[in-house]
């Protein structure tokens, strides 16, 4: 279907374009030519931008259908303006076999909403002992390999895994956390954990693991994407690594650029996240690192958790927050707080993750896939369970008002979400 998005403020972070104009869509792609549109979307007063690309969104299938289903979470994705998402391998069973990956991709494709890019398990069952058949998994559609939130304890295995991935040129996405130092911890090992009597995860659980990973990248040349950075020292280390020319990129969970350990308040289990919310100084360094490009992109780290698993004492509650529908408003909020141009803020959730993923979307340029979002950057909405399409209503922002409401989402030129 040929389609016209008329009169919106068109922002293409990749080129820096920011002007009022029309966007034409033909045969699923952005078109240069003026076409005779069968449908017109009036975008007057709205922003037209590339659809968001989220490098970490759990869809909970297979295995955790009681927490969320592919249907509910793909609905949530497009309602949040997310047109592409990478899903971590921590399903049940984990994505360690081509058959599972293939099935997930087929199921996702049949729903024809957002594009889904599975991230395969680096080791069998994420147990950190045996390598998965990475080449087979890549053929089945895995875009990278990861351990999700199960840090690899055995550095021998880690080294071999990175070597093996480098052999085939596969990217490895890892969260830097020392398995032993992080063991039993549920909150940042600082003032708040001390006050609340919660077992702590020290900052150096991240930076020690990060130093190990960077050293292994030097040794193996593996393309490493660092997931969910959480500490100020970690940001400095990544900055130095990039300066050195190591092939590393890095993301941060969108909640971590806004919240800190102080937000745990009186044991708010919605603030139980992995990695933990750290000090305000760490939070500020993450927000600054995302702005200066040390951190390449922000992710939702979407983790739908059922109510029963959150209505528990803090340490027993399941970690994670819902995020697909909050990624855009929270990215906008971050950009506003840092006084960034809208294009620069959006780059962190569109063109930059596209670059890491190596996909042609994430830009508004002729010939690019017509994955687009039309949103009202000013319109406030209250984060209440009824307002969220995701089956996970677990958010530290419940009850808050956030600005940035999606009006329409297009994937490959099809309108997959529309809200007047």
């Amino acid at each position: 279907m040929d389609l016209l998005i008329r009169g919106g403020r068109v922002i293409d972070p990749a080129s820096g374009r920011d002007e009022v104009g029309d966007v034409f869509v033909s045969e699923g792609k952005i078109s240069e030519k003026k076409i005779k549109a069968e449908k017109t979307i009036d975008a007057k007063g709205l922003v037209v931008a590339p659809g968001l690309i989220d490098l970490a969104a759990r869809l909970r299938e297979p295995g955790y259908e009681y927490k969320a289903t592919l249907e509910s979470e793909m609905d949530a994705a497009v309602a949040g303006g997310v047109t592409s998402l990478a899903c971590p391998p921590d399903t049940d069973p984990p994505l360690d076999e081509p058959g599972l990956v293939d099935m997930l991709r087929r199921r996702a494709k049949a729903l024809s909403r957002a594009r889904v890019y599975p991230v395969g398990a680096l080791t069998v069952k994420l147990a950190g002992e045996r390598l998965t058949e990475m080449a087979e998994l890549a053929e089945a559609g895995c875009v990278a390999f990861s351990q999700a939130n199960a840090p690899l304890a055995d550095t021998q295995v880690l080294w071999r895994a990175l070597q093996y991935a480098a052999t085939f040129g596969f990217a490895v996405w890892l969260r830097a956390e020392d398995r032993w130092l992080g063991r039993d911890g549920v909150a940042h090992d600082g003032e708040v954990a001390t006050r609340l009597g919660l077992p702590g995860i020290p900052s150096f659980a991240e930076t020690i693991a990060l130093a190990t990973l960077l050293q292994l990248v030097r040794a193996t040349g593996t393309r490493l994407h660092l997931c969910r950075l959480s500490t100020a020292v970690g940001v400095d280390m990544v900055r130095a690594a990039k300066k050195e020319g190591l092939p590393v990129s890095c993301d941060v969970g969108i909640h971590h650029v806004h919240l800190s350990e102080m937000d745990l308040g009186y044991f708010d289990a919605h603030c139980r996240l992995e990695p933990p919310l750290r000090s305000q100084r760490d939070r500020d360094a993450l927000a600054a690192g995302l702005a200066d490009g040390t951190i390449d992109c922000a992710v939702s780290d979407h983790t739908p958790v059922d109510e029963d698993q959150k209505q528990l004492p803090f340490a027993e509650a399941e970690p994670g927050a819902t995020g697909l529908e909050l990624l855009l408003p929270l990215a906008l909020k971050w950009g506003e707080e840092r006084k960034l141009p809208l294009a620069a803020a959006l780059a962190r959730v569109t063109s930059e993750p596209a670059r890491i993923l190596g996909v042609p979307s994430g830009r508004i340029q002729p010939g690019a896939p017509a994955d687009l979002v039309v949103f009202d950057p000013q319109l406030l909405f209250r984060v209440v369970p009824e307002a969220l399409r995701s089956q996970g209503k677990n958010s530290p922002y419940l009850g808050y008002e956030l600005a940035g409401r999606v009006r329409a989402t297009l994937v490959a030129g099809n309108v997959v979400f529309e809200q007047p």
Partner: protein
Amino acid sequence: MQRNPQLNASGELQHLLSIEGLPREILLQILDTAESFAGVTEREVKKVPLLRGKSVFNLFFEASTRTRTTFEIAAKRLSADVINLNIAVSSQSKGESLLDTVANLSAMQADLFVVRHASSGAPYLIARHVKPHEHVINAGDGRHAHPTQGLLDLYTIRHYKQDFSRLTVAIVGDLLHSRVARSLIHGLTTLGVPEVRAIGPQTLLPAGVESLGVRVFHDMRSGLRDCDVVVMLRLQSERMNGALLPSAQEFFKHYGLTAEKLALARPDAIVMHPGPMNRGVEIDSSVADGPHSVILPQVTFGIAVRMAVMSIVAGN
């Protein structure tokens, strides 16, 4: 940040969850009221009709006969009906959730829940979900707080030392895992104790413990110098041999309270312990039973303090 969940809209004590965040006036109100109850507990008839007809549920998700008994005695002396539930071995093993358990008991017309739980913050979760006329008293949650123990420690200190404003108080041992220490520290700083010391090896002190307002000593002898009050903490046996400590013997040598070390404190110093004691691990018998020890009076005062807390909370 949310409103302090312990206080009702008029700033009165609705639940007792932690000493942290309680204003000085409320702490003093509890101590003063406990003083009056201490009179009652010395009478022939040790009972007042205040909570007649009220039901107190002792919800112990973590077993502790001792603490449960003191709450039970306090409730009975207030004429309340006491129901003891040792949930550690009942519903939780059947997979019932914490909130389901509470909802069930609430349906049986509870007025007061006394909660002990191994997980920090559990009483907060319960307090958020009880009905407006129901009250929650934290009887110890994880490493977080044990406010009635902290209050009885404050009561004991005031009883022997009167004025908080000139005291040096040392807390010795495993502060990392101690809810008693956290509660006491908040109480002491709120009531204006100028110097609170934390004495222990680095492995048993929580990260940034100084932020609670204490001075850290790793050497017990320098830490005890000129102290008015020495509070010894219990060292759980599972922590004695491992990555935190090599052995109970080595711990006792460096951090056990002996008469010789106690001599460094003020001559009129008092020695406290929340119990149960490990003699020969954190405290020597000659000190535990010696003239400086106020460990048994602590237990007696504990009843009056818990009566005070229950009657203040249940009346608000």
